[in-house]
């Protein structure tokens, strides 16, 4: 009986996967027509990778870090420097020229992404040693500072020959097609899910719940904190690299603290400690901002200009929606639960009951 249920769920998942691939194929075939939708979806998927990697740290290991933008910057610049076609580099580094050491350094984008991850992981390993001695808010402030330092270093004129300082880098080759972009994001998230469900994931969670008890079980606290920090930074770096490929031109302002807040928003909205929550949050937040552009345009109904409808108003609406979500879903959309077909089934079955109850109370009000 139980076996049957599992295979049924697998069948549903397979259908859902084929459906997604079908949609991607359709978008790919008409990429000129749907370029706006595609760009939103790609950005969402990349944010989902970074959000899940932040969740791995904040939600599953209980380390509140705000260094995401810094590690993304490291990843993005690594990918950019390694993938900009050598023959166009002169035009990119038009101010001070390019450092000879990196002038002809070029590799395929997948290798660049792996190197981006490894490079940010290495930096995380170094700064993790002092920083991970701190806890909660103090850790957040230290990593926040680190992130700003990275941004300042990247935009420093002294590094013009490597990072092109405040002029940014452009001509980064785009994804060859949609499937590569989504496939890479999916792969990163899958790897993190496998990690969370392994015995390492259990150790991370134990650390989050109770450090004293975790230590009494023989867990080496520092080793696991460092491990979580390094792995999370690896995927954040890869996410930054993906963002660079997606945006095709980057500069240090892209990686300001606002980027970290966006990711934090996604994690909190989706549910701290839920991978599916982070993925849903990434798509909702990224797409939501675009849908709400409607509020930025002046609106005239019956010859009357409706006030407030002007550029910038959508962010007001967006913030109000966020507050509403946080008030009504205290623990985010998914809480710390993961998506399951049973859960979806329960939700759908419960809708008629909720409606019934609602109509009952309304009747009661009338009487």
């Amino acid at each position, binding site marked *: 009986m139980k076996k049957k249920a599992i295979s049924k769920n697998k069948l549903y998942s397979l259908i859902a996967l084929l459906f997604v691939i079908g949609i991607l194929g359709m978008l790919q075939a008409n990429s000129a027509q749907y370029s706006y939708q595609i760009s939103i979806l790609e950005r969402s998927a990349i944010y989902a990778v970074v959000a899940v990697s932040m969740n791995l740290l904040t939600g599953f290991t209980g380390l509140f870090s705000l260094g995401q933008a810094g590690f993304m910057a490291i990843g993005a610049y690594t990918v950019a420097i390694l993938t900009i076609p050598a023959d166009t580099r002169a035009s990119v580094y038009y101010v001070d020229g390019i450092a000879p050491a990196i002038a002809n350094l070029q590799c395929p984008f997948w290798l660049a992404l792996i190197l981006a991850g490894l490079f940010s992981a290495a930096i995380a390993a170094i700064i993790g040693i002092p920083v991970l001695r701190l806890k909660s808010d103090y850790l957040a402030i230290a990593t926040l500072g680190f992130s700003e330092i990275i941004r300042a270093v990247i935009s420093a004129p002294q590094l013009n020959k490597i990072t092109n300082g405040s002029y940014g880098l452009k001509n980064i080759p785009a994804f060859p097609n949609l499937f590569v972009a989504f496939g890479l994001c999916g792969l990163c998230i899958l790897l993190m899910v496998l990690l969370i469900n392994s015995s390492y994931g259990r150790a991370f969670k134990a650390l989050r719940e109770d450090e004293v008890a975790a230590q*009494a*079980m*023989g867990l*080496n606290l520092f080793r696991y904190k460092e491990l979580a920090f390094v792995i999370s930074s690896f995927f954040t770096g890869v996410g930054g690299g993906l963002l660079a490929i997606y945006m095709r031109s980057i500069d240090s302002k892209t990686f300001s603290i606002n980027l970290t807040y966006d990711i934090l928003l996604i994690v909190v909205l989706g549910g701290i400690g839920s991978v599916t929550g982070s993925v849903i949050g990434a798509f909702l937040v990224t797409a939501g901002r675009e849908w709400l552009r409607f509020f930025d345009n002046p609106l005239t109904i019956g010859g009357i200009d409706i006030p407030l409808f002007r550029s910038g108003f959508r962010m007001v609406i967006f913030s109000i929606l966020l507050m509403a979500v946080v008030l009504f879903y205290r623990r985010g959309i998914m809480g710390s639960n993961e998506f399951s077909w049973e859960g979806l089934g329960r939700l759908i079955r419960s809708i008629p009951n909720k409606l019934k109850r609602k109509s009952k109370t309304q009747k009661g009000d009338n009487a």
Partner: protein
Amino acid sequence: MLKIENLKVNYGGIEAVKGVSFEVPDKTIVTLIGANGAGKSTTLRSIVGLVKPSAGSSITLDGEELIGLDTTQIVSKGIALVPEGRHVFPDMTVLENIKIGAYLRNDSLEDDINWVYTLFPRLKERSWQLSGTLSGGEQQMLAVARALMSHPRILMMDEPSLGLAPLIVKDLFSIIREINKKGVTVLLIEQNANMALHTADMGYVMETGRITLSGAGKELLADESVKAAYLGKKKN
């Protein structure tokens, strides 16, 4: 045998443990009783390396010095601690909690999981429940079960009866005896002197950082000053 000699621990100028010596022979139940602030928990925490004792102290397991090793190494030598106040992992299921107890082992857990489930049938029923939603008694049982999963030679418990109903305390102590019969040495810290001394082979009374009395469990129960201080009976 676990041997503690001249253990001294300072917390920033205050000497919490002032030269304590005692022995925990293999396969026995030894209890440390005493009032709040006597230094019992500090003693336990120094044994597992969570607190660093002052120079001159010595804690040896079969002649091997434990001071200076980190907690992971000490736990891997077969000493498990059930910390005071249970400390289960609240947002993990009962089964996950039990599995994390076996964290330092690489062999199959099946038999041991079954064993702790027979010791605590209640946990088996609740195996998929989040531990934070268990009652206090069940959480204590889970904490003991979790500690047993590391296959300890020595199980150390810090006030397991804290906040539990008398009937549950009785159950818990009978399980402690059962665990001991399987060959596990038990070092028990308790304020419930009556239960602890009835269960233990050997007892030590701690007061303000020192051991003031020691003897077989039954002897201490009969001791007039113990009766007066811990068992609520008037001196005649």
